[in-house]
């Protein structure tokens, strides 16, 4: 996903001269081509994420569309107040890019696991929260964020995630929900890099259920969501994030709003698959840690 991101950012930056990339001394073998092509619009700001977010705000005040890039918690949690106050309160055109969302940097430990940042970022006004599910989504989200004026968060996986979508390319609009597979009765809502796992599980078990990918966690197309909720009896949400405040929470909140608004008379059961309020303090691959955190589908979930 990070390769899809940087390649697309380079494409966009060829015509959009406002694109500026700041990195926090990370991005080895990823960001070099951008730096070589656009030296006037690139800066390695050092290992100083609070400063990076503040400098990005300053650059954005002068008309740049600034991407700040680092790993997982560093461009997010480490500088949360600069994001809230300098970037979002002033509604500045800054895009926060985190590689290694969820457990992508598995063995590096909790310091490198981004498992709470969505809950924090989606509460901040003006912030758009994106978590693309595969490289095609990452590419399209990159294009979207460059066109959208205002703060965005882009949660990427690492490198090497397979493509899930069957289309050649995507053109994702704000809040769009992407149908991966149309089935019956039960639907899985996936966000971020869980998509491949979900898709494989459903295929391998030959289940006739729906799969939707949510490249946006904020906002979410409420009308489309309502159609999907009305068309299914059970929803499973899955995310690489703590259960509180994340994607599943966002779905529950919107579902409740739809019930309150009288648009959803027979709400489906919603089962959330997310990290159950704990840290994982074992070494392990991404897949191992996902299992340890309970981020798994089980055939029993699909008996209705």
């Amino acid at each position, binding site marked *: 996903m990070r390769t899809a991101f940087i390649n697309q950012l380079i494409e966009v930056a060829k015509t959009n001269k406002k694109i500026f990339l700041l990195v926090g001394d990370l991005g080895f073998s990823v960001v070099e081509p951008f730096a070589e092509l656009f030296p006037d619009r690139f800066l390695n700001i050092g290992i100083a994420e609070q400063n990076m977010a503040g400098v990005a705000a300053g650059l954005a005040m002068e008309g740049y569309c600034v991407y700040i890039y680092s790993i997982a918690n560093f461009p997010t949690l480490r500088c949360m107040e600069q994001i809230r106050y300098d970037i979002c309160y*002033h509604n500045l055109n800054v895009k926060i890019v985190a590689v290694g969302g969820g457990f992508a940097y598995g063995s590096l430990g909790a310091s490198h696991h981004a498992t709470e940042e969505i809950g924090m970022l989606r509460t901040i006004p003006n912030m758009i929260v994106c978590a693309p599910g595969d490289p095609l989504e990452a590419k399209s989200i990159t294009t979207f964020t460059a066109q959208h004026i205002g703060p965005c968060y882009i949660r990427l996986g690492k490198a090497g995630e397979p493509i899930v979508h069957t289309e050649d390319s995507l053109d994702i609009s704000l809040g769009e929900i992407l149908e991966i597979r149309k089935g019956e009765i039960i639907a899985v809502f996936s966000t971020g890099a869980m998509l491949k796992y979900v898709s494989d599980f459903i295929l391998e078990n030959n289940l006739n259920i729906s799969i939707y990918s949510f490249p946006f966690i904020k906002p979410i197309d409420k009308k489309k969501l309502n159609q999907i909720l009305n068309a299914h009896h059970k929803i499973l949400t899955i995310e690489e994030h703590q259960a509180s405040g994340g994607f599943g929470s966002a779905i529950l909140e919107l579902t409740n709003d739809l019930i309150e608004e009288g648009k959803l008379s027979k709400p489906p059961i919603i089962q959330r698959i997310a990290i159950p309020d704990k840290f994982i303090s074992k070494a392990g691959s991404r897949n191992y840690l996902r299992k340890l955190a309970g981020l798994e589908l089980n055939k029993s979930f699909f008996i209705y």
Partner: protein
Amino acid sequence: MTKKSKVELLAQKIRKLSLQMVYDAKASHIGGSLSMADILAVLYSDILNVDPLFPNNPTRDRFLLSKGHACTGLYAVLALKGFFPISNLSSYAKDGSDFIAHTNHHIPGIEISAGSLGHALSVCCGLALAAKRKNCNWKTFCLVSDGELDEGSNWEAILLAPQLKLDNLILIIDYNKIQSLGSVKDVINLEPLIDKFKSFRWETFEVDGHNHDLLKTVFTNALELDGKPKVIVAHTVKGKGISFMENNLLWHYKSPSKDQLDEAIYELSKK
């Protein structure tokens, strides 16, 4: 009484308006407004290229007040310079007012909202970097308090600015020697402050932050030097100009009674 200069009159009016605002709103932070009043008076009289009729002019100098709690001083000088009517200040800190008790970027002439300390200097580095990358000549000025230098984020920016040779950035430290719970020396001693900045590769200046002629000279000298960011350590007195507020921690918090306001205004008028 000798005739006052234009800058002296401006400084006096900034102090009066600031006092009136904190009195009307029963608000805090007058001490830090008074300590920087002379710096603002000199900047807005003789140094900054800003235009009240065109506050967003792309070629203007950028002035960012990092110690946003001292906003009354900035609101006052902007009103006095014609960015908005002085009468607007009567709404300060009241229900529905844009004049929040920390700077508000929705007000003409105010570049950023500040309130959480240690934020503006990084933003200023971004502004100064943008000016460099776009070959613009305008300058960026950042006014920070001494106490807020406890914030680590400032030091990230202080490391970065010389690396990028941001000689279009001027940092002013309102060194009034008092922070929220005591003297700067007792809480976290900043000394040797000038040596710190020298070792961080900044061009350093020290000045009496209440002497208008010296302030003007130091700004002029700082603007002439190339190659390095500049820091001006302005030695100031918290509560400056009002005898019973000077060097008194209480006036970080307290708002004056009617008698105290009258006494303060009287003292200013005598000078």
